[in-house]
């Protein structure tokens, strides 16, 4: 899609301004119901589009992303615009700087249409915990778009942006991509700078793209990755343009299926779609074999110890003093505090929603004296075993393949008040974050529920910094599916 728009821009069939206007009017028309965006940046978008049109008019060359309209998850900073992270505690926060991933998109000439909805501080799997609005799944408006990057996924699926950025701490790009029928890519930890991403769990967070095709996701990754002095975990660029690897040829590629992922209680409809997908990889010439990830079953408890521990530390900065909501803002909305402790307690009581409070307290408990060894320390040790499982698996196979999520998009409120039910939605995705490896979700097939065809994503995971192999396989699958339709 990006390539064809790029060609149309170059040969004058469309203008960047016309394109931005078309997307903005679709947003105006549809987003009231859909709820993908929290902030629409109409004037800014048109201003950047006019710059691109000026370059084209002067006969200058333009890059692949120049003039391409996109959306940014609202936990990434954009100078001078409201950045909420889906939380009341950041209502009214105006970011004073750009996240590196955002500034790289802007330098590449992409047109930012707005900021998208998310679960509060990216904590959730349905976007229901956003303090601002509900986002509907464009495939079936009675269902959630997934989360936490539900707004970005819905925006791309409903053509309210050509591509979008999301962040993925335990599946927050891949699961909504699966639910909305688009491609979602979580790069290797350290591929993309986290500077300007409002931190959730710093050893797990990673920014990545949503797109309509594997090639588009590859193009976006090529523009945003690489070393950033402001994020010490970023790796030097290896000069790759990921879209150059999409040959369509996966003959001889070794794909492993973890036997631990296909337990008896897996939804038989998901299993059947997955098995058909395995056959498709075989028919494309891949060598599919069973592998074992013996510690996979510990991934969820390990994740739900490490992530809240890091959350409790990262969210300590929201103290009602330096920025964001405060009971001491001088307004008559709140009772002014009598002490510093009360400023903290009351500002955080008002500002944070229930899931955020739950995770901050869980992490505080796991890190507290007397429990640290039993929880956090033990979880870190098991994490190293999970990583070792993958190192060993990747001696025998090039990629690991699984469903992205154990189910298709669920209905609003389906997970009720039981936090564990929601957490189980992440069972296939958290391992990639714990191990730091890249993973991509791509449309694998559909299941029919209540007369609706609901998309299901397939997940390919690859060795550290080997996004190209994973994208090549997902692209080959996408081509084969297109050929079938």
């Amino acid at each position, binding site marked *: 899609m990006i390539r064809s728009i790029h060609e149309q821009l170059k040969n004058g069939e469309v203008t960047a301004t016309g394109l931005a206007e078309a997307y903005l009017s679709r947003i105006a028309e549809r987003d009231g119901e859909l709820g993908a965006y929290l902030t629409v940046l109409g004037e800014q978008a048109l201003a950047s589009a006019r710059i691109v049109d000026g370059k084209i008019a002067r006969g200058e060359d333009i890059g692949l992303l120049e003039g391409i309209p996109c959306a940014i998850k609202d936990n990434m900073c954009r100078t001078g615009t409201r950045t909420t992270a889906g939380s009341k505690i950041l209502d009214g926060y105006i970011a004073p700087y750009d996240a590196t991933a955002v500034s790289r998109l802007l330098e590449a000439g992409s047109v930012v249409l707005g900021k998208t909805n998310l679960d509060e501080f990216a904590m959730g799997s349905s976007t229901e915990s956003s303090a601002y609005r509900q986002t509907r799944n464009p495939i079936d408006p009675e269902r959630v778009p997934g989360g936490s990057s539900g707004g970005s996924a819905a925006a791309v699926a409903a053509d309210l942006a050509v591509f979008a950025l999301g962040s993925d701490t335990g599946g927050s790009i891949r699961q909504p991509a699966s639910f909305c029928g688009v491609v979602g890519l979580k790069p290797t930890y350290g591929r993309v700078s986290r500077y300007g991403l409002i931190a959730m769990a710093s050893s797990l967070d990673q920014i990545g793209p949503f797109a309509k095709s594997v090639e588009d996701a590859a193009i976006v990754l090529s523009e945003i990755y690489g070393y950033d002095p402001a994020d010490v975990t970023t790796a030097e660029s290896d000069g790759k343009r990921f879209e150059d690897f999409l040959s369509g040829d996966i003959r001889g590629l070794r794909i492993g299926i973890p036997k631990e992922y296909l337990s008896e209680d897996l939804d038989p409809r998901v299993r059947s779609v997955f098995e058909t997908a395995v056959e498709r990889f075989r028919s494309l010439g891949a060598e599919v074999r069973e592998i074992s990830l013996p510690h996979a079953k510990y991934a969820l408890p390990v994740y739900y110890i490490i992530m809240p521990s890091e959350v409790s530390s990262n969210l300590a900065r929201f103290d009602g003093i330096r920025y964001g909501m405060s009971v001491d803002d001088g307004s008559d909305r709140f009772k002014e505090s009598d002490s510093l402790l009360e400023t903290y307690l009351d500002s955080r009581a008002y500002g944070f929603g229930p899931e955020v409070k739950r995770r901050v307290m869980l992490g505080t408990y796991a890190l507290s004296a007397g429990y640290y060894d039993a929880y956090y320390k033990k979880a*870190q040790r098991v994490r190293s075993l999970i990583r070792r499982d993958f190192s060993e698996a990747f001696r025998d196979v090039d990629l690991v393949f699984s469903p992205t999520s154990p189910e298709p998009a669920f209905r609003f409120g389906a997970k009720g008040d039981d936090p564990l039910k929601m957490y189980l939605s992440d069972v296939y995705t958290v391992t990639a974050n714990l191990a730091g490896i890249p993973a991509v979700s791509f449309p694998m097939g559909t299941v029919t529920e209540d007369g609706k065809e609901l998309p299901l994503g397939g997940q390919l995971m690859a060795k550290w910094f080997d996004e190209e192999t994973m994208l090549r396989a997902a692209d080959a699958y996408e081509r084969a599916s297109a050929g079938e339709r």
Partner: protein
Amino acid sequence: MLSTDEVKRIALLARIGLTDAEIERYRKDLSSVLDFFRELEALDLSDGADEEGVPVKENDTREDRAEPFGSVGRDDIMKNVPSVKDGYVKVRSVF
């Protein structure tokens, strides 16, 4: 199940004010998640499991030079401060 006092202690450490109804709710929620962690108890870690996180490179170093407010700028930072007096961030007295 966590006791009411335990939840109060955690909430105070976490600097989150809770109502009595919330304390009851989180007693239940936190306890069910902590039970879920039990799965790790049986795991034998004698096989050389270490604690290292994701392998990342050593720290980068930079010149130790003061850069007041860096590229961001004082005004844009101060715009977000909820309570300001004479150009400074205003905080309740600690004692």
